[in-house]
Structures are given as structure tokens and as C-alpha cells.
């Protein structure tokens, strides 16, 4: 329990609470970012530099942005954001409890709440790379294939639909260069 752990743990908890409790969806997204930052800090505190920084790079730099983009882009032109029905809380609570039980169980079975006797060795980036390129090369390749497929799909989705004309008039014979 270093002060750093307390700080980052606090950030994670506060951020997560904010993400649940705040009303404005963009505020929720932003407080989720606080959680991400806290997590990254925890990783760094544990000596997992690469993981922590990748967490910031990917989650804060990309995922969070994606999140707020989605929030802005998917709102339709009518009505408020769908209201959370009171009954939904129960299901949510149940799922949360199950996840908590699962996590605790997993942790308990792995560490057994005992302090480690041998000193910890921190894997370096090089170790990570070597592991990825030797032992885990097949999963890495598979992930690559999946991501490529996803990217191609995204590109196809993003292509402008060719149906009729666009909104508004365009000069005759000139497709607007977009």
C-alpha cells in the first residue's frame, strides 16, 4: 500500500463512480478517462511500464475519443437519451456482483493472499517483444488478422453510400470532391 497505490486506486474508484452516476453522457465518458488514467498509474506503480503507457496511449488517446465521438454521432434528432428504467438496476447489480465474485475468486486462487517470497522481476519491453514473437506468435498473427478484417470493414462502412444525389445541389457533372 504505497501512497501511489492509494492515489491511483482512488482515481480509479472515483472515476468509475462518476462514470456511473453522472447525468451527462459526455461527463460520464470523461470520468471514465479518469479511471483509465488511474489504471495506467497503477500499472506504472507496479513496474509494468509498457502496459501502463500502452493503456494511456490506447485507452485515453483512442478509446476515450472514440467513446465521446460515438456519443456525439449516434444521438438521433429526437428525444432525450433513453431513460434508465428502475428495473434495470437489478440486472445491473446482479451482473456487477457476479463479476466481483469472479474477480475475487480468481485473485484468491492465484495469489492466495500471501506475500511473495522471491523478489519480483519486471519484464522489460524486450522480454515482452521476445515473448510475443516466439511463444505467442500465432495468437499475435490471429489478432492481426482480426484487426485487419475489422479495419477493412470499418473502411467499407465509412465509404459514402452511392444512392441518388447528395443533399443539396451540386454543380452539374461535378461530383464534389470529398
Amino acid at each position, binding site marked *: 500500500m504505497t501512497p501511489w497505490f492509494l492515489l491511483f486506486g482512488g482515481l480509479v474508484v472515483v472515476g468509475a463512480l462518476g462514470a456511473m452516476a453522472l447525468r*451527462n453522457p459526455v461527463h460520464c465518458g470523461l470520468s471514465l478517462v479518469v479511471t483509465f488514467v488511474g489504471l495506467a498509474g497503477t500499472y506504472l506503480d507496479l513496474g509494468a511500464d509498457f502496459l501502463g503507457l500502452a493503456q494511456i496511449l490506447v485507452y485515453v488517446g483512442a478509446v476515450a475519443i472514440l467513446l465521446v465521438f460515438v456519443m*456525439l*454521432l*449516434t*444521438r*438521433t*434528432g*429526437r*428525444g*432525450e437519451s433513453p431513460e434508465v428504467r428502475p428495473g434495470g438496476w437489478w440486472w445491473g447489480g446482479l451482473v456487477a456482483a457476479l463479476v466481483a465474485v469472479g474477480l475475487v475468486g480468481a485473485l484468491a486462487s492465484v495469489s492466495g493472499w500471501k506475500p511473495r517470497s522471491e523478489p519480483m522481476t519486471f519484464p522489460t519491453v524486450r522480454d515482452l517483444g521476445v515473448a510475443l514473437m516466439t511463444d505467442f506468435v500465432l495468437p499475435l498473427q490471429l489478432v492481426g488478422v482480426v484487426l485487419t478484417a475489422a479495419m477493412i470493414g470499418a473502411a467499407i462502412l465509412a465509404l459514402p453510400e452511392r444512392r441518388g444525389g*447528395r*443533399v*443539396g*445541389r*451540386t*454543380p*452539374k457533372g*461535378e461530383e*464534389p*470532391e*470529398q
Partner: protein
Amino acid sequence: MLTLDADGKQGGGGGVDRRFEVLPAGVESNGEGGSLLEISMGPQHPSTHGVFRMDVVLDGETVVRLKPVFGYLHRNHEKIAENASYLAAMPYTDRLDYFCSLTNNWAYALAVEKLAGLQVPERAEFLRVITAELTRLQNHVCLAGFLMQDMGASGTPLMYGFREREKILDLFESLTGARMMCNYMRFGGCRTDAPPGWLEEARGVVDRFPRFLDEFENLLSGNEIMMARTQGVGVLTRELAVSASVTGPVLRACGVDYDLRKVDGYGIYPRFHFRVPLGDHGDTYDRYMIRILEMRESLAILRQALDQIPEGPVIDPKAKLRGFRPKPGEAYGRIEAPKGELGFYLISDGTANPYRYRVRPPSLINLTVLEDLCLGHNVADTVTILGSIDIVLGEVDR
């Protein structure tokens, strides 16, 4: 593409809570699940070249509708002129297109001369050509600078343009007494003769000008960013240009060979050899390049005029300053101003002030095609298209 706060009432963007209850006026669905965004560019917007407003409706960043709103600078020019003597309207013409006061003077003087049947002495005709072509130079130089400024070029081309314009304005100052509001031409000639040494000074400015043009072309004409921003943007078709009675470089950029200096041959223009550059695409790049090429032709005219200018009086001795009462009748005088055809239509009822005084402002009429040029383009392009049309709000609103 983007769904935004629909409420335009609060601040610039609208409040949070009342979002999307109803779509207020101006915001509507784009048919793809998103809504359109209406933004008001101007009248306090850095790119509208004065107090001019464009109500732009955007789908994402694409212009769907554009409504030019002008009149913020209306000064009642025509009615003031109808209630003042013929001479008193002359300084007001300076304020129409305040970049080109000398061509405005000329167009008005031409109309009155037609009305009253005045002859212009030889030397005055030469002085008119010289000042008009210098005006064209400085107008086009500034236009190119402003256009680049609209594209975000940090003012460098603009400053180069202004550097050259200063020299021409100095010439105007020593000839007419003012840099912009020249009020130089009179019915039947010009107000004063060129002071000693003026023609030589003008010669020097004309001789040094091509160096600037070359530098300017080095800096911009081949610049990839500039070409990418302007080529294929804001294409004006020949048919639309003619039917909207667009004139000037904007028209010639569509490939229509119409230059009043050739068509009307007013003044003594038929005596000079010069060419009329024409564009083939009618896009912003053509409009820019036509002006650059026109400057080179103007320089050719200036060289010839400065070589051939004769001695003599500069004003028709019959012309009266005070108590000028042309016979009843009407006249339309038009010239090729830097921005297009500038015409003055006058009806005289024999009194000291015109019965009807009407300006045909090239800026206003060229501006009417703005929406057609901008539709389907990016919002950033509306700025460059507006810049390439070359308007001066003093002339649009009058």
C-alpha cells in the same frame, strides 16, 4: 455526419438541456439520421471581406445551402447622388469600390460625358488609362493577397501585395492628393495634370512590377497546397456565368471572351496592344491566374501609354464645374473596372442634379452566383470562393 446541439439561441451553440426536443428553424434532418447545422459566417467574421454575412447550412462540413446577406454598409449612394449636383456625386463614387476609386471616377465621368456630349482631351485620356491600369494592378495584387490570406497563408502574400500597392498608392497620392479616395476625374478630363516627374516615377513602378509578379508566382502559383485548395473548387459554368451576367475576370475565367476594353473600346483603349487571358475551368485557380495574367497585360498597356502620352490640356475648356446642367436625356457609361463591368446610368431632366442615377456594381452582380459556386463544397472553400469572386462591400451595398 455530426449531430450538434440544435438550439441556436444560447451563446453560439445552444444549451444542453433543451437539446433535440424540437428542431428549430434552420436545423433539419439531412435525410441520413443526422441534422444539418446552420452557422452564420459574418458579419463579424474574419473572412467575409467586410460586413457581409453568409448563412451557411452545413451537412458535416459540406455546404448544403448558402444565403448571402448584405446591406450592412448601405449608404444610400444613388439617392444622395440624385439630390446633389453632378459634381458632388463624384467623390461619392470613390467610396463605392474603395480599392478602385479611379475606375469608379472614370465610369461616372464617362456617363456624364455621354450625357452632356463633352470631349476629353488627349492627355486626359492617357492619364485616365494610366490611372485605371494602375488601379487594376493594385486591385488584383490585393485580391491575390486576400485570397491567400483566406487560405491561411499567414499574410505573407498579402504583405507582398501591399508592398507593391503602396508604391502605386504613392503615385496616386502625388497625382490626385489622396491614396484611396482619389476624386480625380472630372467631366471632360481630369482635375489636374501630372506633377513634374510623375510619369517617370510611374515608369519606374511599372518597370519594377514584373519582378514582384515573378516572385509572387514563385511563391504561390506552383504551390501544391494552393493548387489543391483552388483547382476544381467553385466551378462556374459558362452558361451560368453568362445568364447571371457575371463580368470581369470571374467571367473570363470561364472562358468567355468579354472585356469591355476590347468590346466597347472606350477611351483610347483601341490604340493599345494587349491580350485578354481566358481560363478554361472556371474554378478558383483560374480566377486567380486570370488576374495574375491580366496584371501582365496591364503592364503592357501602361508601358505603351507612358511612352505615347502627349502634352496638352487635361480638361475640356467647355466643361463647367459649377452650374453644370446637361440637356434632358439619358446615358449609360460603362467601363471594365478591375472587378467587372461598372456602369452608371443617368437620366437628366435638365436640372442641376440627375433625375435618376443608377450604378451597376460588378461586385454585387458577381456575388449572386456565390451559392451556386459553394454548394457541395467544404465550408473552408466558401471562404476561398468568396475571396476569388473579389467583392468590396462598399460597392455591393452602396
